[in-house]
């Protein structure tokens, strides 16, 4: 079922929320580093966000460690999404590389990164994706990698396409790659999306705009890096990911730093 709200109406809702968030920052509040779980312009969030405040507690021993994924779990070939079939997938071949860090900039070593994405035409290999764009028999769109000694990761893939969804009339998602990350503590668990620079759909997308602070939103956009492009082969993007904690919160200036 498609919501009959227009894009202009969604834009008005999003602008009103952002203006209210900006006013809070102007009054001395901290910028919101994370998206709002209650973000009505993203219609599916309306019945799926908790209405109670989360209960703030100290993590205990179990929450302070993470599963020990490693090369037992992930084959090195899984980081190349272009070699999973007999032929080459269609689309722009790209690499996405970066580092996974904690809030103090320390590398998250030897930890699992998972990605999934649509193909170049904006179609997912998922039975519920009904977008009438072609499937690519040479592209599944799933990759995994274990980070290196400096927290580094790299995927080879093709640039996904934007695709329509049914949040409102003529709703389109900006081009993105889904990322799933683990830290050294289970409390650092993160699922997010990497976007591509200059996407004209940013201002129109309620999922991206659910992060009300423009600087925080910009942290989801990878940077084109010509030094990562390979001549006559692929274009390179760089995207570093910073997990929460242990000192990644806004009001941290009193902490001693080594």
């Amino acid at each position: 079922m498609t919501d009959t709200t227009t894009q202009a109406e969604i834009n008005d809702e999003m602008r009103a929320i952002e203006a209210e968030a900006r006013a809070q920052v102007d009054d001395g509040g901290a910028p919101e580093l994370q998206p709002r779980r209650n973000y009505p312009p993203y219609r599916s969030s309306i019945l799926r966000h908790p209405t109670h405040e989360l209960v703030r507690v100290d993590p205990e021993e179990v929450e302070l460690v993470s599963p020990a994924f490693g090369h037992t779990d992930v084959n090195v070939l899984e980081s190349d999404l272009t070699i999973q079939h007999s032929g080459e997938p269609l689309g722009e071949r790209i690499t996405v590389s970066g580092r996974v860090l904690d809030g103090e900039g320390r590398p998250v070593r030897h930890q699992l990164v998972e990605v999934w994405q649509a193909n170049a035409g904006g179609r997912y290999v998922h039975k519920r994706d009904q977008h009438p764009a072609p499937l690519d028999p040479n592209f599944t769109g799933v990759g995994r990698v274990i980070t290196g000694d400096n927290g580094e990761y790299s995927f080879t893939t093709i640039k996904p396409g934007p695709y329509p969804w049914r949040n409102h009339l003529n709703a389109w998602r900006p081009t993105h790659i889904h990322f799933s990350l683990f830290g050294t503590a289970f409390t650092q668990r993160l699922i997010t999306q990497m976007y591509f620079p200059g996407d004209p759909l940013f201002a129109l997308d309620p999922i991206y705009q659910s992060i009300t602070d423009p600087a925080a939103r910009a942290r989801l956009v990878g940077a084109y890096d010509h030094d990562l492009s390979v001549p006559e082969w692929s274009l390179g993007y760089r995207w570093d990911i910073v997990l929460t904690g242990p000192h990644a919160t806004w009001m941290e200036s009193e902490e001693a730093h080594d």
Partner: protein
Amino acid sequence: MTEPTEFMQTPAQTVGPFYGFALPYDKGPELVPGHHPHAIRLHGTVTDGAGDPVPDAILELWQANETGAISREQGALDRDGFIFTGFGRAAVNQAGHFTFTTVKPGSVGGTAPYLVITVFARGLIQHLFTRAYFPEDTDLHREDTVLRAVPAARRATLVCVADGTPGGTPSYRFDVRLQGANETVFLDFDA
């Protein structure tokens, strides 16, 4: 000497509707095989604010082993059926229902045993953490710092309900209500 935090956290985004070909994996919900002598079933339904099942949620489970030790073993994604890694992942079915097979964790440091549950779903812009405690540990629950931080009227949402021993396997039900009457308590560890 103070300095600004240079490494600002990367914001979360929803898992979306199309994780089904990427995140679930073979034996993901089976932290132990069903024939393990101490296997338990942990299952439940994810519901939204209208009380309707959420058919596109995926849950993760993270826990100590039977003796209360935390596994450092690899192999959670490529299970051999013997090594206990403490991690599992289960997508819900069309009825919003999930099932894990695991063991009851031992007490860690004398505290009440619990399972850490992470919930992801379309429409849920940032994941949610909660804990599932066991109904037989009421004495330990009275001393538990997390349960004590929760208003008394809401504590029961963090405790599984024992619902029999189908096929000889003790079964615990843990429903996740994202919103509405009896909304599950979700935890913020981001201190």
